[in-house]
C-alpha cells in the first residue's frame, strides 16, 4: 500500500548484470542462459552450459580454451587486486564453486568448492562434495596445489594421481567437447 516507486520489472530478455565487458571467442559455445558479470574473457572452443554463473565481482576472469562448464557452476572473483586465470581443458561439474586460479586439464566434481586461498596447478581432480582450502602455515600467501593432486572424500583428503590412463582421459574429454559443440546449438540460442 506504500506509494514508494516500484522497481521496474526486469524483462526476461534483459541480462541480470552488466555484460558489456564480456568477450567471447567466436568459436566458443556459450548458451544464452548462462549468467555473466563484469570483465570476463572466454577462450576458443569452451562450452558453457545453461545456468552457469561467471561473476567477476571485482577483478577480471579469464577462461582459457576447451573448458566445459556445467550448469549451476559458480566461478567468482571477489579480489580487486588479482586476475582469476582459468587454463585450458578444464572440466567443471554441476554446482562446482571455484574462486581460485586454475591451471590446465583439471577436473572439478559436482558441488565441490575451491576457495580463494589456493592456486590449482595442472591435472588435479577435486572430487564431488569436497572443499579444497589452503593448508599453508602462512595465510598471507596462497597455497600452490601440486600437479596430479586428487582431493576426495568427506574430509577432503589429498593423494597423488600416478597419471595412468591420462591419454584415454584426454581423448574422452576431446570427444565430449566435440559432442557438446554439435548438440548444444540445436537446443539453445548460442551467444556470439
Amino acid at each position: 500500500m506504500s506509494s514508494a516507486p516500484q522497481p521496474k520489472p526486469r524483462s526476461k530478455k534483459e541480462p541480470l548484470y552488466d555484460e558489456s565487458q564480456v568477450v567471447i571467442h567466436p568459436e566458443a559455445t556459450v548458451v544464452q542462459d548462462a549468467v555473466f558479470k563484469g570483465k570476463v574473457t572466454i577462450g576458443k572452443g569452451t562450452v558453457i552450459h545453461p545456468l552457469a554463473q561467471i561473476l567477476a565481482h571485482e577483478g577480471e576472469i579469464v577462461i582459457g580454451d576447451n573448458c566445459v562448464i556445467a550448469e549451476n557452476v559458480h566461478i567468482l572473483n571477489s579480489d580487486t587486486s588479482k586476475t582469476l586465470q582459468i587454463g585450458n581443458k578444464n572440466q567443471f561439474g554441476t554446482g562446482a564453486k571455484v574462486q581460485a586460479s586454475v591451471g590446465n586439464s583439471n577436473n572439478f566434481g559436482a558441488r565441490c568448492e575451491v576457495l580463494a586461498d589456493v592456486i590449482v596447478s595442472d591435472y588435479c581432480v577435486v572430487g564431488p562434495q569436497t572443499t579444497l582450502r589452503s593448508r599453508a602455515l602462512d595465510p598471507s600467501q596462497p597455497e600452490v596445489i601440486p600437479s596430479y593432486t586428487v582431493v576426495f572424500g568427506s574430509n577432503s583428503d589429498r593423494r597423488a594421481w600416478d597419471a595412468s590412463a591420462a591419454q584415454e582421459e584426454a581423448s574422452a574429454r576431446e570427444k565430449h567437447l566435440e559432442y557438446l559443440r554439435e548438440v548444444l546449438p540445436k537446443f539453445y540460442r548460442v551467444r556470439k
Partner: protein
Amino acid sequence: MASAFLDPIPISSKEYAFTDSGNVISRSAKIYGASNIVINGRSVIEKGCVIRGDLQRVVATPGVGGSAGTMSMQLASNTTSVNAGRYLSVGQGTVLRPPGKLYKGTFNYFQMKMGDFVTIGQNCIVEAVSIGNGSEIEDDCIIGEFVTIKDFVIIEQGTVLSPNTVCPNLTRWAGNPGRLVDSLPESTPETVEARVRANYKRYKVVKPESKPPSAAAATPRYPTSLSKNA
C-alpha cells in the same frame, strides 16, 4: 514418517502446471529438451529443478510412411533421455542429467530410466543410468555417472555415490564416498508405495489468491495491452 494424515500442500496454478496424467510441474523448474523427457504421470517436479533432456544426439527427423516409419520409431525411442515412471517426486533445486561416456569411439549420452514411486529430495545431483521402483534419494545427495540403483533402495542424506556404483535391492547407503550401511526388511515395498501415494495426495490445488493490484502490477507474467498504464 509420512502418513495419510499429513497436512495438505496447497499449490496454485500460478506456480504449477498440471497435465492430464496428473503431473504437477513447477513453472520455475528449468526443463531443457522437453521433447526428450517422458514422465508417466502423477509426478511432482518442484521449484528450481533442472532436467536436461537436451544432451541427446539429434538423429534424423522421423520419416513419413514407407519403410522409414518403423526405423524412425526405433530412433525416436532411443532419443528419450530421461524416462520416469509414475509417482516420481523431485525436490527443490535438484539437477537430473543423463550420464555420458565414450562408447565404441564416439561420445554419447545415455538414457536415464526411473521406475515407479521414485522419490528424490532437495538439492541432489543425479546422473544415474537407472533408478528402480520405490527407491528414495534423500536431500543433498550426489549420484555419480552410470550408477545403477535397483528397487526399494534408500540413499541417506548427503551421500556421494561414486560413478558406476550398483546398489542392490532393499539396501541403505550413506557416506562420502557412499557405502552400504544396512539392509531393509522385505515388507518395505508395501510401506513405500502407500507413503508415496499418500504424499502425492497431499498436493491440493487452490485458486491463486487475489493479491492487491499494486503487487500484481509489479510482476506481470505476461504483458497485456489492457493494463492500466497503457
